[in-house]
């Protein structure tokens, strides 16, 4: 597929959404639109990135992000290589720096990194000439998730995000998804609300581009979409919650809450879900749930990003052809 665009993709890496302009984001969306269409064809593979290589370096376990990137790469005919912590030299005590330099020596076009330490993607990007896409680092950022979440909303709302209200509900303090989403949604003109018990809100959250609630009944009132976050079960052990049962009583999104939102308010979840803990099971399967759409958006968004980063240095060639 030939990309007919004269948009210049200036970025070497995708560490978070803060470096993207609204134009960049819209360009990613438009590129993803085309791939989204391909994903609905019977034959889903195109030769665009033939001969390019993408390393999926997943230091922390992940099923959907990794599969999504893997599928995105393969549908573009890129060669994808997966590396996990178990089975890699990292488990033998090799440092991230040495592993990174070793991977670079194989000359990949892109490394996708998932890591449990905040800042790990930047650590890699500072040291490697290839593109680094942050597949989630600690509590810090998950830019591809934020892009696919907004892309999913765009399927329903079109390009006009302005004035829409989105509630993000759950463990805000320890969520990389929320940090990237607050930035991206507000960049697009969405009014963001956050809701969690005070013990799961980070210091300084009042300075974020969002309105903060602790009570779900108030937070959900009139919103156009609710994004539930996964609650890690260890938060209760860390003394941040009295019990999971009490959390579900106060902060689990239910149909009763959703009645307070806009009619047809969308329900989202980045997965994996704890049904009955942060989201009522019936809501996850309800008609206005877009949770599975998020998954298919994820493949299209990651195809767009792999395409843009893998071909970022090809532009002058394209111009020559034109």
């Amino acid at each position, binding site marked *: 597929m030939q990309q007919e665009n004269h948009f210049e993709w200036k970025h070497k890496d995708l560490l978070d959404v803060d470096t993207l302009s609204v134009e960049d984001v819209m360009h990613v969306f438009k590129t993803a639109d085309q791939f989204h269409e391909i994903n609905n064809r019977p034959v889903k593979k195109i030769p665009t990135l033939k001969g390019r290589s993408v390393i999926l370096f997943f230091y922390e376990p992940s099923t959907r992000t990794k599969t999504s990137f893997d599928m995105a790469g393969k549908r573009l005919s890129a060669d994808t290589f997966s590396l996990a912590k178990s089975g890699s030299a990292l488990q033998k005590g090799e*440092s991230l720096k040495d592993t990174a330099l070793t991977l670079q020596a194989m000359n990949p076009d892109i490394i996708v990194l998932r890591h449990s330490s905040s*800042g790990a993607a*930047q650590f890699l990007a500072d040291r490697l000439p290839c593109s680094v896409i942050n597949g989630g*680092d600690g509590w810090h950022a998950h830019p591809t998730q934020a892009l696919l979440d907004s892309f999913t909303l765009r399927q329903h709302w079109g390009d006009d995000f302005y004035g829409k209200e989105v509630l993000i509900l759950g463990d805000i303090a320890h969520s990389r998804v929320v940090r990237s989403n607050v930035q991206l949604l507000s960049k697009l003109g969405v009014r963001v609300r956050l809701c969690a018990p005070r013990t799961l809100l980070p210091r300084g959250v009042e300075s974020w581009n969002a309105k903060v609630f602790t009570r779900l009944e108030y937070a959900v009132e009139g919103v156009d979409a609710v994004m539930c976050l996964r609650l890690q079960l260890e938060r209760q052990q860390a003394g941040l919650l009295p019990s999971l049962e009490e959390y579900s009583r106060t902060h689990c999104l239910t149909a009763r809450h959703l009645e307070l939102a806009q009619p047809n308010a969308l329900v989202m979840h980045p997965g994996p879900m704890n049904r009955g803990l942060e989201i009522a099971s019936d809501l996850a399967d309800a008609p206005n749930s877009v949770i599975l759409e998020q998954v298919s958006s994820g493949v299209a968004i990651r195809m767009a990003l792999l395409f843009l980063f893998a071909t970022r240095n090809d532009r002058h060639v394209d111009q020559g052809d034109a």
Partner: protein
Amino acid sequence: MNSFILKNARLGSRELNILVLDGKIAHVYPAGAGSDLPGEIPADIREAMPFDIPSTDELAGLPVEDAGGLKAMPSLIDAHVHLREPGQEWKETIATGLKAAVHGGFGSVMCMANTDPVNDNAAVTRLMLEQARQHFPHGPRLYPVGALTKNLEGKELAPMAELAAAGCIAFSNDGRPVTNTEIMRRAMEYANDQDCIVLDHCEDEYLANKAQMNESALSGKLGLKGQPAIGETIQVTRDILLAEYLKVPVHIQHVSHRRSIDAISNAKQLHVPVTCETCPHYLFLSEEAVRGYDTAAKVNPPLRGQEDVESLRNALTTGAIDILVTDHAPHSAQEKEVEFDQAPNGISGLDSALSLTWELVRQGVITEIDMLKLWCYNPGRIFGIPVNTFRCGDPADFFLFDPEERWKLTPETMHSKGKNSPFIGRQLVGKVKAHWIGGYKVV
């Protein structure tokens, strides 16, 4: 060997000659025209001298060094360093740490007990002193600080009498707080019996659990676990109350938060026997230095807010802060070049401390006299370490300082093994050109 004349040294605003006899300051006199020797020494000075004045012929035979008009400053004391030996010699050794010290203007250093094994028994203390003596027989002088509790666990008192007899001059759990207040109380009492002061690393260990930086909007943004600054002040306040109740002095280590300064100021007004220290990095850097996940700026206590930096700077001249220390904490490059949450805490400080402090003098934040109080006279008084005031009988510990020389802090210009400094690449002003300890030239 350790008798000589140093001519043309700048002391305060005057150019003077210094007569050093037997490792001690004998006489300081105006640089004369025609002769480097002192004239007739007044009778009162002569009588006060702890040694006989040599004859004029003998004086004429002494070697003469020319300071060339450079400043002569008394050797500084660093009351808080980690020299990593025994056990972590890949980070630093007593030899490399003392080398960095002496080039940085320090004639005395107090090394903390968190070595491996911990300095909680006389064998470790003796090993430290032996290493120092072997590599630097004439100094810098090493003063070990013994562990306050066994293995720094905060559970049982370390054998402080044994440690003091072996050469420890103070006790500290540095690196870890003493959470149990009953243990802290007993440790302060017992240390006082040994005529030693307790130095306390103040941190609420539960509030600071697994923290990577200061807790703030920035930690929230970076997705790093923060520790609230008040965790320090909570323990500082406890220590002040203990010191007042027990009438036993306590020294607060590496103060980083403005509320701790407030608490210490108030306590001093009430004549509570409390003293405290801070470090150059808390006077120059705020938590902004960790943005970008720079592990060179990862230190404990963590760098705080800009208001804390301002407050600490102010406290240098109000008397709230008694002394400056480096908290020199060297690490190897590969230990620091890792993910932020995997990196050890610490900044290598001996090489840059004096020039950074000189920057404060140049900026007018403190005077040169303040600088000498903070780095020499006050620690000397608090810890009972002899200092040089250039009076007859003082130890001849001093260095020549070029106040104008510009140099850049780089891994190559640092003498410490640990190159972990957030000041790497910084242009500094002021450098040690020569250093005598006990009258012996060591630089």
